[in-house]
């Protein structure tokens, strides 16, 4: 049962920030993640502040120089089906369309997708785990088939978002407005791993609102993709996935970004793999080398060694598909 809370729907960003600065308050966007967390007792809230009346946080707009601004309240469906995004930022539309289910995508927002809480079943379930203020991470000795193989420390979640790896590959920046004003940062620096702080997944502090996502203007000869592997055909998070963003020149890779989902507590960028493919044609060998580099530093837990094979397989497949595209 969802516990009691009060609800407010401010009409200005300023007011929303003010209300959200009060302890015990939580931001409500589409609610698809938040309400589940409340119902399951994962988080508590005295008051929810809905940002749904902030019209300036909605929609996809193109600026004069061709870059794109996506309001935090834009739904995953709107992003998945937007012709310009589909054409120039395929990784993002593929990421958005591979998330959750049609109903959830109609209701869930991109801001919420990036800021959603982890799906670790110990965190979500009736277990007093480290991230919820308990003593230990149950995944270490427990059922850790879906947990991370890299970047874990004290806590072994994977970041659940399918859009975040795509956005990082596409060099997205995010704008945040909070009590201290507005700041813009690369999405890559938005996420916080457990080494730094196992109680949070990102830099958002009390009163902070993610207002928009900024994508650089599409470059010539650029292609991107997101490939996700899951245990069930829909309504399932990634066992592992890969977002690719590659700029070619005469078939040679000029610039590559390779970001993994399902392997680490944050979307996991693999610079070494990027280096391997840069300056070369993508062929079986480079794909296989890059794929191997993606798991070089991985240390699997007792039940997720399969992810080593999986990551290699999916990266190889995605790179070769990109070459063929």
């Amino acid at each position, binding site marked *: *049962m969802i516990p*009691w809370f009060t609800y407010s729907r401010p009409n200005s960003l300023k007011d929303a920030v003010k209300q959200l600065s009060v302890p015990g308050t939580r931001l409500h966007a589409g609610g698809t993640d938040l309400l589940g967390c409340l119902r399951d007792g994962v988080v508590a809230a005295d008051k929810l502040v809905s940002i749904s009346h902030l019209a300036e946080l909605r929609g996809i707009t193109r600026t004069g120089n061709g870059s794109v601004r996506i309001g935090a309240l834009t739904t995953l469906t709107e992003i998945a089906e937007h012709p310009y995004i589909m054409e120039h930022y395929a990784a993002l539309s593929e990421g958005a369309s591979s998330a959750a*289910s049609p109903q959830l995508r109609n209701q869930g927002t991109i801001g919420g997708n990036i800021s959603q809480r982890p799906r670790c*079943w*110990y965190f979500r*379930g*009736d*277990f007093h785990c480290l991230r919820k203020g308990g003593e230990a991470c*149950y995944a270490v*000795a*427990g*059922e850790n*088939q879906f947990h991370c193989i890299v970047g874990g420390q004290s806590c072994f979640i994977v970041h659940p978002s399918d859009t975040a790896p795509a956005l990082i590959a596409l060099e997205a920046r995010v704008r945040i407005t909070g009590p201290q004003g507005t700041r813009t940062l690369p999405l890559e620096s938005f996420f916080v791993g457990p080494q730094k702080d196992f109680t949070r997944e990102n830099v958002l502090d009390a009163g902070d609102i993610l207002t928009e996502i900024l994508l650089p203007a599409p470059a010539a000869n650029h292609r991107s993709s997101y490939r996700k*592997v899951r*245990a*069930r*055909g*829909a*309504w*399932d998070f990634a*066992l592992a996935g890969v977002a690719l963003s590659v700029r070619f020149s005469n078939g040679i890779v000029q610039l590559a970004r390779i970001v993994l989902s399902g392997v680490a507590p944050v979307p996991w960028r693999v610079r070494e793999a990027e280096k391997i493919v840069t300056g070369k044609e993508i062929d079986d060998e480079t794909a296989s080398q890059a794929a191997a580099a993606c798991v070089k530093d991985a240390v699997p837990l007792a*039940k*997720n*060694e*399969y992810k080593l*094979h*999986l990551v*290699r*397989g*999916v990266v*190889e*497949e995605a790179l070769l598909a990109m070459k063929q595209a």
Partner: protein
Amino acid sequence: MRTDSVNYMGESPPETQGQAGTLTPWEETTVVGKPLPRVDAYERVSGSAVYTQDIVLPGMLYGAILRCPHAHAKVKHVDTGKAAKMPGVHGIITDSTPGANIPWYHGAKGAMSRLFDPHCRHEGEEVAAVAAESPHQAWDAAKAITVEYERLPFVTDIEDAMNSGAPPVHEGGNRDGDSSVYQRGDTAKGFAEADVVLEETYRTSFEIHTPMETHASVAQWDGNRLTVWDSTQGVFAVQSSLAESLGLPLSSVRVACHYMGGGFGSKLDLSKHTVIAALLARMAARPVKVTLTREESFLCVGNRPANIIKLKAGVKKDGTLTALELTNLGSGGAYPASSSVGYLVRDLYLCPNVHVDETNVFINAGTARAMRAPGFPQCAWALEQTMDALAEKIGVDPVEFRVNIIPTVSQVRNNMPFTSTGLKRCLLEGAKAFRWKEARERPRQDGPIRRGVGVAAGMWGWEGETVSTAIVKLFADGSVNLNIGASDIGTGTKTVMAMVVAEELGVPLEKIQIEYADTGTTSYAPGSGGSQTVVANAPAVRKGAVEVRNQLLELAADELKRPVGELVLKDGAIQTTAEPIKKVPISDLQILQRRQMIVGVGYRDRGPEGKVALPFVAQFAEVEVNIRTGETKVVRFLAAHDSGRALNSLTFENQVFGGIAMGIGFATTEQRILDSRQTGKMVNANWHDYKIPTAMDVPVDQTCISIDPHDKECNNTGAKGLGEPATIPAAAAIANAVYHATGVRLKQAPITPMQMLSLLAQQQEGGNR
């Protein structure tokens, strides 16, 4: 508590006398067999259908059940003081409440637990319950009850539970009685005669039924009489157990179930929450509704046992089976519940020497309940993969191999003949329609995507309870009321039964009102399960309808002064077959206008004398395996079913497609996961982490073929059961297809990408294909 339903203990059930008593299946039909949509499709789709969960009675309270959060614990102290004072609370019951001390879970030596037993043997066992004005108040109060637990060591792994040092779930250890042994012939001799002997261990996972509508009951007292609306497959089974639990005569307990959102076996008998609703309602003197949450439904209302099945099989080069030996270690959970799987090994194929040894072990987890073909998909998983492997070893096509070892008698029933067996036709006609040969002989690709096809066969082994009574009433205007005790659990029972009436009386379906599944107003029928709903009820319905027709014709003969033999009932009118031709609408019959109603009662008579009627199936799957990522996609599926006559080809097909989807879940996604090494608690007790297949996991290319052997002996409709066979071989067919595609044998269900990748990696290391 008694959970078995009424049976006649070997005595003859009542029989319909006269012509209706000796009906043989129709030669030709006008309604039966057609692909007609559900008679209640509009109500179900529009949302106007009232399910148990939708029922709201004046003054009704809501119940919530506090459950043990530990895998194994003793309740030391329960304090309800704070909860009792909370707003809206009207009643709290615990183990110490007078009248709540109701024995539960019966073993060989009597009851092994009670309603709120302080010894909680699995996560989710009931500790206390609250009734309050709103669901929120009830849950808040339940949470405000403080319970002191003494946590006990637990065991949730089947093999661990067999170890001598394992924490005992019950005093006296974890074995649920002695192993059960079946023996026929001499297996040692059989294996010695074999040219090929294979032995392998197969494992399956615990599955949860997860019906769309979670379990729910609404209880209302009127003096000493109790009415319960229950989301159940069997109102009579619930009535008898509930009456016994509460010490009431059957006449004081009425149980009804109208629209019902699935059960798959988990709603065949009485559940604790139903008794709790009744006790709370009595205490509060108000009606009480208890609806289980999805999480509760994962923990406390049943599951399909997991099994570790060792199967040894011997075959001669000419394809004759010489011996089958199956050892099963399974668990029905914390209390006695069958985890037996051995049936198929004993009866599906001709084999003179068979040995089956089955052990059930207690673990600290929820108690099993029958789940769609209990034991059969597990056995098919082992047997049908073994058959595939044997066929390969002796170099025979797996379809052909099976075709040559099909029995016409039931070997477990002292070779009692089957009334019919269409298994050979299922295999051959199925293979043809599937283009099996072509797909099978397609050269193996070497790329990352591998395609393969597999086949598996099956049968259902329970002839059921052939006891039921149907009452058919003809109103003066020619419309009809049909009264049956069966639940329509979503399979189309109402539709099919109405079609049987329409066939005999020529009434359009819209003019048939159906009264069903209510112990207060309908006649007895066994629970809707075990592929018995059509088989137990349709013959009785047909007899009832024929009874009405006969009476009507006799009355008409009197009135029209013509011999009965010259009258027929057609299109709502009595017609003469001899000159002068006359046609009198039913509503014009004077005698009917006077009597206003004709009542026909149809009894289902005994099963066929000296024979047994069982359904058979062969299913074919095509899969695509991505060997880079371990993803397995079922891309094509064909099911060929001998379930006798298909009474409605649309609901028939629906049933098969649903069974395939469940088979795909068994094969690829579904498994209960317990935190065995730390807490023993279930980590995936929700619909997101416990993965039932979605529309994306089911192939678009699905075909259902009905193979009708025109069985004249099974019963007067020619129909055999379908619900269980639809899901029995599906998973095994998929596993065989994966083997064909990759050369990897899937010993463990489900075939997740996790398992597939590990096996493919082993295959690469071993270099064997």
